[in-house]
């Protein structure tokens, strides 16, 4: 895979990458438990 191909993909698919990034941010944000214990799990 060449650099030009990478750039092409970025150019074409950046909205999808942005969506994937946003989903990842949300996943990461809510993956953190309130505490090591059980807060919010009742």
């Amino acid at each position, binding site marked *: 895979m060449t650099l030009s*191909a990478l750039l092409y993909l970025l150019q074409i698919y950046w909205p999808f990458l942005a969506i*994937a*990034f946003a989903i990842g941010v949300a996943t990461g944000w809510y993956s953190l438990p*309130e*505490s*090591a*214990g059980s*807060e919010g799990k009742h």
Partner: protein
Amino acid sequence: MDATPHIIESALFLLVAFLLGCVVGYLARRIAASRAPALVPAADPVAAAEQPARSSESAVSADSVSPTPKGKAPRAGRKASVPGSSQRARKTVATSSGPADDLKKIRGIGPRLEANLQERGITHYDQIAKLTKKATSELDAELNLRGRIEREQWVEQAKALMKAGK
């Protein structure tokens, strides 16, 4: 250039973007959680300096909570400095001095709940350890915890943490 040969690469890109997002989201949450409690103690010295004469009145609701331990100068600042917290919740606890304890060590208390407790002037284990049944139920209702304070035995945990800290 035809896009079809790059399906795998595209999928990898998406995966990388997702994982990157996960890391960023996780770190952002960690930072947000660690900053939230730090905001409350920062307001304390100012408020305490404004009301030095009232320090002897800081232990409120004698029927709910026993007074602050000897040797610890109580502070009136925290509970008066938070505009959003209710009067009732503020009356349920006595204030305490010194650097705030890490309430997250109590099982069931996380960053958000710790911040809520700090808004109500609860920053030390001894304040939780001294909660009476009445104060516990009031605080439980204020924070909409549905009985978790008793169920998770915060008072007992706080006492144990106090003991361990000595």
